[in-house]
């Protein structure tokens, strides 16, 4: 009792200054001690994990670099030597590289799609850098002028001296990028429209939106592709022919739009009611409220979901190979049948190459989405 009474009254005149944390808890060593070696079990797991990583990396380095064949004219370069299999047959990828990139696009016209790539990158990169100026003009150029230019260049215009290259000759990475980028550019705005429609007060609009979303989400993409390539021509008048590439393109875009709509709807639902009320109380009309207040916040919230859908769409483009289009996957698989390069490691090399190309694009999108999330973070709490 007496010890308690001594400490009842207390007061402080000077506030304590903040001090740095103890050194053992910070820095690389502190982090490792806390996360990797905190007790014997964690230490054991750390070493098992390191061993598994070592197994994978060492095999990959051996296959893709140390034992790999980088040059050669045909299969003889990549055949087993003295009964020992060689690693990756990069010589084969090198020999076929042009075809993997553009399918059957005439060699003399290659500059046309390379120019399309160059202009595309020149317009896309500044748009993706938040601080770059002239966003409005940049976006107009990319989304209005560029598609026209790309179409003229890729397909051709005899009046401009560009011979026609039929879409059946398009292939490889070129076709994959065309389908993916058109799909991405169409699916986001369309998805936003259907997400808004699904939350609309107007029953007809809401019903149509739900019907669209549920229909496209309810059927497998393969069905959509088969329907578009086999069934659709049966329903159209005989003199109407839809391009062989346009048909699956529309299918992929609408399919992704349905998923996008649900992603965006998730974001819309996460916006507190107070934001709508504050916008309405200021006299904003529905479209201004959505465009200035609700969508910027909702889309920011669902950047991971949007990019997830983009990445899914990018990889789903490989399904067009089953309806006779030679996209990147289709053309690589087709080349495997060529006896000129038939070796035990050709297929593994081909799929490793495919994985690297797809990974390059998907991981790039993923990193950019993380960057944007951080950039748009305004330190608010809900």
């Amino acid at each position: 009792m007496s010890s308690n009474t001594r400490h009842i009254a207390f007061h402080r005149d000077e506030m304590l200054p903040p001090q740095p944390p103890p050194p053992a808890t910070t820095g690389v060593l502190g982090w490792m001690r806390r996360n990797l070696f905190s007790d014997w079990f964690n230490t054991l797991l750390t070493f098992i994990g390191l061993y598994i990583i070592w197994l994978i990396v060492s095999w990959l380095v051996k296959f893709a670099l140390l034992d790999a064949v980088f040059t050669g004219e045909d299969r003889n370069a990549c055949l087993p030597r003295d009964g020992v299999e060689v690693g990756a047959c990069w010589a084969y990828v090198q020999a076929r590289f042009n075809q993997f990139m553009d399918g059957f696009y005439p060699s003399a016209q290659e500059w046309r799609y390379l120019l399309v790539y160059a202009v595309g990158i020149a317009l896309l990169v500044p748009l993706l850098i938040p601080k770059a100026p002239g966003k409005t003009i940049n976006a107009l150029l990319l989304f209005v002028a560029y598609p026209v230019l790309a179409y003229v260049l890729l397909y051709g215009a005899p009046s401009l001296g560009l011979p026609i290259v039929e879409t059946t000759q398009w292939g490889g990475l070129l076709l994959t990028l065309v389908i993916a980028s058109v799909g991405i550019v169409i699916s986001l705005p369309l998805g936003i429209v259907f997400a808004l429609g699904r939350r609309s007060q107007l029953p007809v609009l809401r019903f149509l939106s739900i019907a669209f979303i549920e229909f496209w989400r309810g059927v497998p993409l393969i069905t959509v592709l088969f329907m578009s390539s086999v069934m659709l021509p049966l329903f159209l008048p005989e003199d109407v022919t839809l391009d062989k590439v346009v048909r699956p393109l529309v299918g992929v875009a609408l399919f992704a739009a349905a998923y996008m709509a649900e992603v965006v709807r998730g974001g819309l639902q996460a916006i507190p009611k107070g934001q709508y009320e504050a916008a309405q109380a200021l006299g904003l009309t529905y479209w201004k409220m959505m465009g200035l207040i609700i969508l910027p916040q909702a889309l920011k919230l669902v950047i991971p979901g949007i990019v997830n859908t983009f990445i899914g769409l990018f990889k789903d483009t490989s399904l067009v190979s089953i309806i006779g289009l030679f996209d990147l996957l289709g053309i690589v698989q087709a080349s495997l049948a060529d006896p000129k390069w038939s070796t035990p490691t050709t297929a593994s090399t081909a799929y490793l190459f495919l994985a690297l190309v797809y990974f390059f694009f998907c991981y790039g999108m993923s990193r950019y989405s993380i960057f944007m999330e951080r950039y748009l973070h305004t330190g608010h709490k809900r």
Partner: protein
Amino acid sequence: MNTATKATTAETANANTPSQATDELAVQMIDVNKWYGEFHVLRDINLEVMRQERIVICGPSGSGKSTLIRCINRLEEHQRGRIIVDGVELTEDIKKIEEIRRDVGMVFQHFNLFPHLTVLENCTLAPIWVRRMPRREAEEIAMHFLEKVRIPEQAHKYPGQLSGGQQQRVAIARALCMKPRIMLFDEPTSALDPEMIKEVLEVMVELAESGMTMLVVTHEMGFARQVADRVIFMDQGQIVEMNTPEEFFSNPQSERTKLFLSQILH
């Protein structure tokens, strides 16, 4: 208030439609009824608010006081009766609703600032997009009101970086930037830490002294005593008692009001 604030009041009063005669009606509610499903939340509300009048509405939670002021700018729809704001009757007509909302400012319990915009952008958004004001002019007006609420130095921060009291003052400035003729306050200090209530109330007192028409839902009885022309007590969706603050606090008539006052004034 002090003399410094007195000096600023005349200026705001002038900005606020000096041509309007003070005996004109700002808000008129006639036999207003509203239901949430089966729940009868507003029952036969009759209320006339004069221009430049300051009204404080209090009452227990669920008494319909927030619903009442939210009906005035149509954040809630009434199902029976008539509401006339600034001479315009509230109907289904979205054009008329938007017209009224432009001239009626609202401050919410949870501030509802736009977190993706800076303080300045919060204040200029509606003048630019609703009033079609040039950006430069909107920013000048915004800075003027941010100075009025004493946070011009925060103009380029995001709402998430401000304290609750600062956020609520920004919310008041944002509403004022639209040059409203009527201001609605829905429990503006209820979500604030005790240390921050005073700074918001001071701004509201100045606004009241500038001649703004105000309807304030609050339990800050000190504020009611200081600035209200009338205090309204609501319970179960009805106006139970309405009087000048002096009479309301010193001589409440209904038993329900007496009970309520005895519970909140300790």
